[in-house]
């Protein structure tokens, strides 16, 4: 009897590890990868082969297995970084099946027969010759994985993952390396799955391709969903449920012939129902309720009203605080963003045609023109979202024409979007915190360095709060970004850009949808930003009044060409331009 229970207890940590690693991908990263079973298998096979045929000890064997799984999955991570959800799904299915085919076809993996007679593992010279000892090893590794992943999830890297799950273009516009992060999260997650595979081989002493197929992936998926995606302890509960289910069925005296499918029916049905009625799983918490609870808690502490602000709330900017925040930014050399003859065509239509402009520092420049003129396209070209067919773009002395969005953002050129694009499922503070954090401190490895332990992240958190205070959003910092009023969201968007410490801001219709009061706030803010003479702002704007109030230089775009530029009065008093703008025939 105890052999049986030991066996079950030995499997549990393995599935918990699998669930944790999968949760990292799906729950935190929002990446649906269906190839987890395959990488589980890679680790299992490598470990088994190294221990059986090459007499390696367990630890080096499992490390190699995890490493190989991690490296192989980097290709999938690369795919994830470039593709949308449906295609990632397809790619990971292809990888899953390809891996199983590989296991089935190679001599070294024993082909369809798999590898039998795997010897018991040896750790530091001691052979673990009983099921109990192997079980203890598995639980030790499970504890380790739990700790490490806990650290990862609650670190800047974890926050970055969340932001990528929310909105990739927004994250990239802040300088975040989306592709690389996806590659690393895949590699990390698959390496852990590979480790679980090594433990699995030690437990069952026999592995075959049939154990690492899509069915296994669905099982892992179920574990994650039952426990709750992005609920850290979810996989523990999920693994327990999925493993205990067959045992409970055997007590119910169901004949063996139907026990297998009944088991499958029950847990797939359970997962389907959960997906529809309780997508946060058994342990996950409804994010809105969490945020409310937190807000209420904070409010109770500080004696403020607990309600989320009315939808008309306009944040109160504290200008001197703000000045200090802005002043704190390191002022590097003054750089000008300029383009020389850039152009791009879509299917024969020239959207932007030979545009040469510069965004001068210390000024707010406005880019105006009738609808369809190509203003946002120009922004896309300047920020790196689109690659120009002709011409070059420079920032300072540097030719940035070939650089990506995030690279340009890292250099100091950031842009905002017409649709605010906040990280809606994250709190206000987290939105800023992500932006404040330097990308160097967001890599996976840097979470385990000495600096990480010394409260570097807390320092960033402090700075985030400072920015929030100056923007009048500090009281709402634990609210979810999606629950802010429109004006507050716009302010938060600005705050996020500011937090990156950029020196050149491309703002796409920043004033749209705001009322007079909010507009005034934002305009003042913009003026403060360029006050130091080294920062530059360019806005796309439709309202002439705003342009008059805020801009000191105007560029007029029509049908993709820069017609003219000059001071607001010159441009707006030009009758030809007005005619074009209002659509009168010339």
């Amino acid at each position: 009897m105890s052999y049986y229970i030991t066996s079950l207890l030995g499997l549990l940590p393995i599935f918990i590890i699998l669930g944790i690693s999968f949760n990292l991908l799906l729950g935190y990263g929002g990446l649906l990868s269906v190839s987890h079973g395959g990488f589980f298998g890679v680790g299992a096979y490598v470990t088994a082969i190294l221990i059986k045929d090459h007499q390696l000890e367990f630890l080096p064997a499992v490390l190699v297995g995890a490493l190989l799984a991690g490296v192989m999955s980097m290709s999938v991570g690369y795919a994830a970084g470039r593709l949308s959800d449906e295609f990632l799904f397809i790619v990971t299915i292809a990888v899953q099946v390809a891996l199983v085919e590989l296991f089935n076809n190679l001599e070294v993996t024993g082909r369809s027969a798999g590898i039998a007679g795997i010897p018991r593992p040896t750790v530091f010279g001691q052979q673990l010759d009983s099921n109990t000892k192997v079980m203890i090893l598995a639980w030790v590794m499970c504890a380790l994985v739990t700790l490490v992943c806990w650290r990862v999830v609650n670190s800047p890297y974890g926050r970055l993952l969340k932001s990528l799950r929310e909105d990739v273009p927004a994250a990239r516009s802040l300088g975040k390396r989306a592709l690389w992060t996806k590659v690393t999260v895949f590699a990390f997650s698959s390496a852990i799955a590979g480790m679980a595979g090594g433990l699995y081989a030690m437990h069952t002493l026999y592995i075959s391709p049939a154990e690492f197929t899509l069915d296994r992936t669905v099982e892992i998926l179920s574990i994650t969903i039952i426990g709750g995606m992005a609920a850290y302890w979810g996989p523990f509960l999920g693994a327990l449920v999925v493993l205990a289910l067959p045992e409970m069925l055997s007590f119910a005296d169901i004949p063996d012939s139907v026990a297998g499918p009944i088991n499958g029916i029950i847990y797939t049905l359970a997962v389907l129902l959960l997906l529809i009625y309780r997508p946060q799983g058994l342990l996950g918490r409804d994010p809105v309720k969490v945020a409310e609870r937190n807000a209420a808690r904070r409010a109770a502490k500080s004696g403020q009203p607990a309600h989320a602000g009315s939808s008309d709330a306009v944040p109160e900017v504290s200008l001197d605080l703000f000045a200090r925040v802005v002043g704190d930014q390191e002022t590097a050399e003054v750089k000008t963003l300029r383009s020389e003859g850039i152009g791009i065509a879509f299917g024969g239509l020239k959207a932007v045609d030979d545009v040469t402009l510069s965004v001068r520092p210390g000024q707010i420049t406005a880019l105006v023109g009738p609808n369809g003129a190509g203003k946002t396209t120009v922004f896309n070209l300047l920020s790196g979202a689109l690659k120009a067919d002709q011409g070059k773009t420079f920032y300072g002395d540097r030719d940035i024409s070939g650089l990506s969005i995030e690279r340009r953002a890292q250099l100091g050129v950031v842009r905002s979007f017409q649709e605010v694009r906040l990280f809606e499922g994250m709190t206000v503070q987290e939105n800023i915190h992500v932006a404040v954090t330097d990308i160097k401190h967001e890599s996976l490895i840097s979470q385990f360095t000495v600096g990480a332990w010394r409260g570097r992240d807390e320092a960033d958190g402090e700075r985030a709060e400072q920015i929030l205070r100056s923007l009048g959003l500090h009281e709402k910092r634990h609210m979810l970004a999606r629950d802010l009023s429109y004006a507050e969201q716009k302010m938060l968007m600005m705050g996020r850009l500011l937090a990156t410490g950029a020196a050149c801001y491309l703002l796409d219709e920043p004033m749209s949808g705001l009322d007079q009061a909010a507009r005034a706030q934002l305009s003042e803010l913009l003026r403060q930003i360029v006050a130091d003479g080294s920062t530059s702002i360019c806005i796309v704007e439709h309202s002439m009044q705003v342009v008059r109030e805020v801009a000191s230089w105007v560029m007029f775009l029509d049908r993709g060409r820069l017609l003219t530029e000059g001071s607001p009065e010159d441009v707006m008093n030009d009758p030809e331009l007005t005619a074009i703008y209002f659509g009168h025939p010339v």
Partner: protein
Amino acid sequence: MRLIRSAQIVAVVAAFSLAAACTTDSGTDDAGTSGIEGATGKATTGDETYKIGLGMPLTGAAASYGEEYVIAVKEGIADVNKEYAKDGIKLELVTADTQATAEGGISAMNKLGAVEKAPVVLTAWSAVVAAATPVAQDLGFALFNAGAQSPSLIGSSPNLVNVLPMNDVQLDNFTKYLTETKGYKTFATIYVDNESGQGTATAFKKAIEARGGKMVAQESIRQDATDATTQIAKIKDSGADFIYMQTLLVEGAATMKAYREAGLDIPIGSYAGVGESRVIRDAGKDAMNGLIYMSHIPEDIDAVNKLLDRMQAADPGRVLANQSYNGYFYASPFIYAEAIKELRSQGAPVTGKNVLAVLNTKKDINVPIIGAMDLTNKLTYVGPTIIRQINDYKANPMDDETIDSVTAD
């Protein structure tokens, strides 16, 4: 700098673990070859019941075959209990479902070995046997294999007893017949991509080449595959004189169907599992006529027929399918009973290890139907094998023609 720091830490950890990675002893337990333990010298008297475990597919694709073997074993146990009652020996059967898969096998072995604590467990199917041997070693029971014939199983574990002729001897005789009597020069193989298929295909190739033949095509087919047209097309293209087929049921049926549809007339041969299979014979139809197969059916055909009649009477609705194999399942309880008898005479406890010790040394075990069994060489039975030919695929396999009979050297 931080990156270098963390890289250093990683390197140290890696070095540590690699340093510990001295080659380890794979630590195989060779207790199986040791002698009988715990013998008191004073013979055990008094009636006792001994458990015998049976791991068979009771569910899943192979269930019908498993159920047939269960009948054979039950007949054997009934006869053992009659015959050995005077020695105070009674056998009790405990079954567990293996589903003919490795995972199912391990679970069944755990149940039989750890929960039921049976000293001997009888099973079949190469996947199950391969997966079960480590469990047998772990838990200390003796694993009797009465169905899987892959040569790779011979001596693969000190706890494994192969009570039926394995493919190596059969292939040796078979290839001799093919090369010398029939004069074939070039050969093709189509084999199921699992333990038994791979093991037998490799052994076949070796045996052919040892006799100067040439292997011109080797095609594998997945277990339970339903389409073999590509493999057959490639074999046809290879221009072989003879095709050897080592498959299980589903893919075997697919293979013969493809063979028939391709209108192939290359002579084809296989082993008893295929030759006697009603499913495959019906899939191949007249293409099966002329197929020759190695059979390890016990020499005493009358005794086999009597057993088959008894089994049919026990379950009139069943279509019997395992003519060559049933006898060995029937005989296994007798082997066990003989070992128990020996141990009782020495006053030794009946444990798996002790049973193995007896089988490793006792040369004169006699069981019904099979006759004399000598398991002392790697705990594997070597027996005479014959070659049979299908003349009418619709007929009862017991009526197939025996065209050659080669005794083991």
